[in-house]
């Protein structure tokens, strides 16, 4: 079997650049959605907020500073080709080092505490990152990364629905979660939904859904229709930009699904602010 050797330092540099870039340059999908929202918004204050967000993102890109002070906790979904051998250090260390350098050299905020309950001492370099690795065929490493702010993360929720809840139960849980979040998670939001799998699989799918560009649809037309319907329902709630009232409470709903158990229908809702930062790379 041919193996492909990749230097750990190459992985570190790639990861560093991913996190700096995603914090300075908001994706085109988000920028376009904010511009469209501004056009459609009927509330004067909502329109003004959207103008300010567009201007904010323009300034951030121009000055290469983060769009939001909450530069998040780093999350990476990795597809690691089984023919790749990392040299000069472990893959895990290489990724963590990339995150560390991005947050230190890139003037990003360090928002991670070492122990969640007792000490809560800042690790001062934003590590550890949360890394999910799948081993896949091939000789490439694909990384899908996001930096997740916690204003919106805290508004997320998961529920172990059972089959009899049906599609109505799914919709109700998603809408209830968004309604409860209200003005808190920096609307207009992106709603990531994970359905199926097990308890933790649903949550991981929901996180992954927040990292999919919002100008894409689920390939299954039934789920794509559900995405559209939910977006429409959420925007009837009236929270509006910054929660100050208006037509644009969400700019995207992305759903991911997975097979599940005969007894279950887990649904996870991961809410993301309008600064939905995500980026991919392949090594």
């Amino acid at each position, binding site marked *: 079997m041919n193996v492909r050797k990749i230097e750990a330092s190459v992985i570190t540099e790639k990861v560093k650049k991913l996190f700096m870039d995603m914090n300075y340059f908001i994706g085109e999908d988000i920028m376009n959605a904010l511009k469209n929202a501004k056009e459609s918004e009927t509330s004067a204050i909502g329109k003004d907020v959207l103008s300010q967000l567009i201007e904010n993102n323009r300034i951030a890109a121009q000055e290469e500073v983060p769009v939001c002070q909450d530069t998040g906790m780093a999350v990476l979904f990795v597809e690691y080709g089984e023919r790749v051998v990392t040299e000069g250090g472990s893959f895990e260390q290489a990724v963590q080092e990339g995150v560390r350098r991005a947050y230190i050299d890139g*003037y990003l905020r360090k928002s991670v505490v070492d122990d969640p309950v007792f000490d809560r001492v800042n690790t001062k370099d934003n590590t550890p990152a949360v890394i999910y690795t799948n081993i896949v065929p091939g000789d490439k490493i694909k990384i899908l990364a996001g930096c997740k702010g916690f204003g919106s993360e805290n508004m997320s929720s998961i529920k172990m629905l059972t089959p009899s809840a049906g599609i109505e139960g799914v919709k109700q849980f998603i809408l209830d979660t968004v309604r409860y979040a209200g003005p808190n998670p920096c609307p207009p939001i992106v709603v990531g939904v994970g359905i199926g799998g097990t308890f933790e699989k649903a949550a991981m799918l929901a996180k992954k859904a927040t990292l999919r560009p919002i100008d894409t649809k689920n390939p299954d037309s039934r789920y794509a229709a559900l995405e559209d319907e939910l977006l429409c329902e959420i925007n009837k709630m009236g929270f509006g930009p910054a929660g100050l009232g208006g037509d644009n409470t969400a700019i995207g709903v992305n759903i991911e699904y997975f097979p599940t158990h005969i007894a279950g229908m887990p649904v996870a809702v991961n809410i993301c602010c309008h600064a939905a930062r995500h980026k991919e790379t392949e090594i």
Partner: protein
Amino acid sequence: MAKKIVLPLSEDTIKDLKAGDSVLITGTMLTGRDAAHKRLYELIEKGEELPVDIKGEVIYYVGPAPAKPGHAVGPAGPTSSYRMDKYTPALLDRGLKAMIGKGKRNDEVIASMIKNGCVYFAAIGGAAALISKSIKKIETLAYEDLGTEAIYRFTVEDFPAIVAIDSQGNSVLAQGK
């Protein structure tokens, strides 16, 4: 048109501010968020002195990003206010006059705001690079060990905000349908 207001806030200014008013704030304000609030609250509970005088002050719920060389301050937008709700009435009873954050407040906070004649401003969440243009100077006042969560003093000019809840308890935050 935005109202220009100068800190410290006078009682008349506070009374004149109505929910929904856009304001541009000039002067100096404190910052503080979760960890600093916890420490202040614990000192108040023990009846001890606070490391900063909060009487008549405005506190901005923010944990700024580091400043790049040549910048006075890094991006510094508001954080969610509800996490400070548990600690807020005790600070308002001690003379804090206003808060700047984003999102909802609970009934205890609103009741304490009415009792103490205080105002809650919303800054736009996620507009951190834009907001930082109005922050001219940053000094560390207390709890430096908390990093971004330390208490800083910001000097601001025309800092943009909206009166989210006024001193009569009126709110402009959307309730949702």
